[in-house]
């Protein structure tokens, strides 16, 4: 760490981590323009003194020698040369205008990567940009992640972003599917000190059951039920059938809270428990016991994450998760499935602006239903390569790396090279941006103001937080929203979905994101209403309390009337798309592919986040090698020894990795971490080696989650064989 000069007195600043959904409170020691120390904030209302090595090590990203600090233009030989912002933006603008003039606005698309949701201003501007363009080519990494959540949110509760969360602080029974909170620190829920919070469930004689193909760091602390990758949908359907057939559901809750509950029995009537046992690898008796125990617990909640979100029936899986919670009377009650306490009325305002929705249109080539105004990533190569009106010709990638992150990534990599214009906003020359005509360097979360826009409604201990930039930005980097807005200016649009925004823009009036969010905050449920509500929140007040303002001790209950957006404030359970998915599930063939007999699932790593933190020395120290986890019996059958190089082949591609023979994975399944195999200008990440997981995955619309186009990254049928390591002797 660089020594601050003696003249500079270090100061402490409070902020929160902008890497993952845990949004842990941090205290930065700042000397001059540098963060010399980052530590967890012991006083943060939700994270209460926890943070992980990724956040603490983030100053190393900030001063990474491979970080780009000036706009870059790609030369014909593939190298990059620095250019001024003016030059870069003007050329991008004129080339975009050329594309739009020739082929319409639809020919220009935007891809937003995962870090966008920790960047409220860029998030707002990117959504606004897509809306103003009216393009269907708005792609999001959520289609390799949580599109099923967004679909079920819209169907059941009337808004994509409506996301009930498990009330772990009070539950008696936590059924955790395909999630590893001890390592991930929680996703689509925001529970501070989640490991301890889960341990407390068992300490008060409750149960935590972890369903996962691997004995994860979470599973080893609790009851572990091994399940075949992507078998979750069968487990949930069978449990729901047992609960309905045996009359163990909460009829009063269903009648009071829902519409369409009478269709549930018919929905699961075709579910065969014996088949469910075969599809999951869990004995019938165990499934029945789980269902009975879950229904009998005073309070219970089932939650599922990547393992349950990235299989072939992800929307149906997520629907069944919610229905199990609802049918057992656990919705909106202590210890159950709770609506959070938002302090920004994002759901209400986006609903007013008609931003949210499902299936209002279909994608041009694949005919996949729209979701929250976005198209799924699996369609991107075909949107680029299929001629006709609306063919995608220019793409702006904001903090994303689809070449690594998207299914069938080989196809994406070649397709993006056919674009007339590819612009990437990214701190690194990464696997994707190395193909871009321009790479534009953004600020990082330590260098810009921030609020936890994505999780603000879900915190287990509700709190509000808005922090200024902790340190100034280095070099010539700019906030993403500014970059987006400058591009918008050059193509004559205002990045906003609001009616009248374009008109105001023509008059030279553009609202900056901080002002827009301050308005939302002040007029929102916790706002100061410009002085009408004493003690209410405003940007100014939060900026004076950067450690966060606690709003309540726990999740609210009894708020369904406020939280459900349907006009009748009931949860709608009867949907043709769900019934059709259930029919497809039952009619489909049993898992049995003699040619590709193993099922691959992705493994979350403690010191990695998606695909972008592999250039940090602290996070790469230790034995960081991408390895395929395989059960000893499978390994023996295949003649694989620990450490052997193996080939993993699916119907879509093949990669290699060294094997780790371990009984922590279930027989018949193999696990591999994603986010390896980098190329580009981040030297350490490239040197770390590994293979691209997504070379094994598919982008065929019929083989992914059909209702949403959500990627299938788990349960991929593969075969594994040892390969010779080339060694000179």
């Amino acid at each position, binding site marked *: *760490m660089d020594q601050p000069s003696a003249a500079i007195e270090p100061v402490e600043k409070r902020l929160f981590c902008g890497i993952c959904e845990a949004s842990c409170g941090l205290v930065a020691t700042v000397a001059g323009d540098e963060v010399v120390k980052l530590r967890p904030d012991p006083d943060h209302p939700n994270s209460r003194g926890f943070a992980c090595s990724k956040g603490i090590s983030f100053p190393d990203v900030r001063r990474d020698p491979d970080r780009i600090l000036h706009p870059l233009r790609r030369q014909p030989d593939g190298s990059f040369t620095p250019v001024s912002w003016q030059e870069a933006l003007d050329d991008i603008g004129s080339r975009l205008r050329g594309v739009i003039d020739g082929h319409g606005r639809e020919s220009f698309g935007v891809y937003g990567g995962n870090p966008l949701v920790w960047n409220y201003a860029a998030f707002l501007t990117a959504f606004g940009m897509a809306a103003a363009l009216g393009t269907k080519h708005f792609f999001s990494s959520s289609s390799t992640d949580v599109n099923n959540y967004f679909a079920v949110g819209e169907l059941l509760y009337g808004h994509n972003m409506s996301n009930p969360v498990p009330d772990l602080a009070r539950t008696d029974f936590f059924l955790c599917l395909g999630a590893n909170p001890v390592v991930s620190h929680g996703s689509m829920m925001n529970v501070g000190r989640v490991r301890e919070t889960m341990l407390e469930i068992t300490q008060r004689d409750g149960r935590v059951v972890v369903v996962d193909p691997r004995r994860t760091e979470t599973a080893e602390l609790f009851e572990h039920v091994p399940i075949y990758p992507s078998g979750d949908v069968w487990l949930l359907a069978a449990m729901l059938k047992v609960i309905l057939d045996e009359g163990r559901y909460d009829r009063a809750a269903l009648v009071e809270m829902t519409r369409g509950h009478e269709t549930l029995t018919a929905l699961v009537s075709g579910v065969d428990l014996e088949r469910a046992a075969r599809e999951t690898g869990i004995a019938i008796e165990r499934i029945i016991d789980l269902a009975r125990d879950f229904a009998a617990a005073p309070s219970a909640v089932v939650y599922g994450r990547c393992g349950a979100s990235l299989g072939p029936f992800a929307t149906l899986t997520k629907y069944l998760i919610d229905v199990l919670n609802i049918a057992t009377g656990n919705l909106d009650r202590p210890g159950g499935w709770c609506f959070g306490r938002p302090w920004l009325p994002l759901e209400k305002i986006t609903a007013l602006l008609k931003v949210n929705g499902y299936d209002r249109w279909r994608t041009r080539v694949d005919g996949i239903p729209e979701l929250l105004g976005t198209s799924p990533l699996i369609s991107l190569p075909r949107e680029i390569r299929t001629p006709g009106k609306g063919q995608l010709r220019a793409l702006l990638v904001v903090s994303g790396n689809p070449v690594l992150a998207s299914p069938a990534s080989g196809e994406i990599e070649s397709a993006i090279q056919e674009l007339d214009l590819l612009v990437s906003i990214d701190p690194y020359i990464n696997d994707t941006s190395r193909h871009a005509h321009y790479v534009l360097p953004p600020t990082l979360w330590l260098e810009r103001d921030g609020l936890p826009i994505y999780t603000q409604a879900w915190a287990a201990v509700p709190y509000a937080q808005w922090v200024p930039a902790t340190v100034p930005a280095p070099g010539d980097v700019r906030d993403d929203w500014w970059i987006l807005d400058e591009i918008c200016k050059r193509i004559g649009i205002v990045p906003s979905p609001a009616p009248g925004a374009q008109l105001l823009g023509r008059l030279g009036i553009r609202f900056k994101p901080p002002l827009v969010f301050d308005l939302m905050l002040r007029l929102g449920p916790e706002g100061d209403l410009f002085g009408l509500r004493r003690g209410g929140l405003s940007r100014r007040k939060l900026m004076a309390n950067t450690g966060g303002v606690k709003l309540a001790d726990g999740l609210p209950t009894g708020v369904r009337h406020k939280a459900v957006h349907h006009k009748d404030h009931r949860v709608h359970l009867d949907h043709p798309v769900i019934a059709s998915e259930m029919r497809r599930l039952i009619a489909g063939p049993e898992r049995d592919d003699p040619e590709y007999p193993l099922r691959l699932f992705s493994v979350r790593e403690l010191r990695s986040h998606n695909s972008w933190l592999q250039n940090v*020395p*602290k*996070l*790469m*120290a*230790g*034995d*960081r*090698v991408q390895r395929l986890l395989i059960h000893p019996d499978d390994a023996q059958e295949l003649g694989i*020894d*620990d*450490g052997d190089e193996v080939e993993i082949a699916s119907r879509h591609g093949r990669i290699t990795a*060294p094997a780790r023979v371990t009984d922590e994975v279930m027989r018949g399944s193999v696990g591999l971490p994603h986010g390896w195999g980098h190329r580009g200008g981040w030297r*350490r*990440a490239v*040197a*770390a*080696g590994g293979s691209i997981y997504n070379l094994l995955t598919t982008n065929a619309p019929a083989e992914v989650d059909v209702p949403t186009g959500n990627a299938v990254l788990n349960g991929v049928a593969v075969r594994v064989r*040892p390969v*010779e390591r080339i*060694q*000179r*002797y």
Partner: protein
Amino acid sequence: MAGVEGRPLRVALVGSGPAGMYAAGHLLEGPAGTYADGRLVDLVDRPVEVDVFDRLPTPWGLVRGGVAPDHPDKKLVAKIFEATAARPGFRFFGNVEVGREIRHGDLTEWYDAVIYAVGAAGDRRLGIPGEDLRGCWSAREFVAWYNGHPDFSHLPFDLSCERAVIVGNGNVALDVARVLALDVDALRTTDVADHALEALGASAIREIVILGRRDPSHAAFNNPELDELADLPTADVIVDPADLPGEHQLALAAADWTALRKIQTLGRIAGRTPVGRSRRIVLRFFTSPIGLVGSNRIESVLVARTELDRGPDGRLVVRATDDKTVIHAGLAFRAVGYSGAAIPGLPFDEGRGVMPNSDGRVIQRDEVLAGTYVAGWIKRGPSGIIGTNKKCARDTVRSLIADADAGRLPTASTLSANVVADLVRARQPAVVTFAGWKAIDRHERDAGKVAGRPRVKQTSIQRMVELAQGGMR
């Protein structure tokens, strides 16, 4: 980078124990760099090829041949070495010994640099009468024997007596005591050598007396090992409370935290009442052997009570008194420290048992022997634990890379990897490569699976070579 432009730096490493393998790991630096002075730095900025030589067909040195069989967790450290071995640029030439098939001069000719990490192949003697009586062994021999070292597997340890004496109270002494005191059933689930399992199963030894010349605060064992001894389920551990210092003496001795921790544990042990377990381990302090007595084989150990004093230079001086006693014992081990052994053609400091060196650069007649380095026990003497060698090896690699940068390596005659492989095979047709070791390893682990053990060790070099040559894929 003079002399190696356009080709990798080529390094020979002699010895595949922890020091050698950590040196290989640092030379084949991972993407995160090397930890030094509190941060990760890029130490090695060029491609490197490392050939690791070992005189045995099996790698990992004392991790395989020294760590006690009931310490399987410590053996897991081999994971680190396996990860190093999987990196590009690594090769293993087992069953090749410097001074046997190849000479030091060959290595300096073939490579840009040679690192010796050969450990300490000998041990210190007691220098008292009767040391060569039958039944008197070095602990090193016993350890190598129960760990299945091919050179020691034939040794005829006679465990038919009731009492064994161990002279010296370092970690090796405790390992030997523990192995003798453990219920043999507890060893049946370990990788202890088959011949040792058989002999230990028939052992009549009921008491193990461990002699320390100095006071408990200067005991050579480490605290974790003492903690473990204290918890041994099969033996009563005996410590004479009178040997333990009072608070006053402790203050005088200015005992550090580590010593205090030992005193506390020993106090806990001394305060316990023996519960009549099948074996006893007696930890004696202030006790020095005067002689080993017996007509044909050892029958007893004559010991004297000692006194400690500060010499004029402030050093602790141990003096034997006239207070002498006899301990009847049919078996005695000297465990007073390992010692390095000289390598033909290289300098050696007999007094310290190390190769003279400066920051790992071997010194001959006051001059640096260009391109020749040491790491581990042969560099600094037999001290520390496994990880101590990681830093030691890092510092040697740092010297080597600095020399490479400054053009101080003899690079003119360096041969390519392929040529060297041919030369090695010509000298030793029974060379065991890493793939060959993997075949041995697989065979041992498969045999272990049947027996409910981590592995069943091969103890014949000939059989190992057959397995290596037959099983290479």
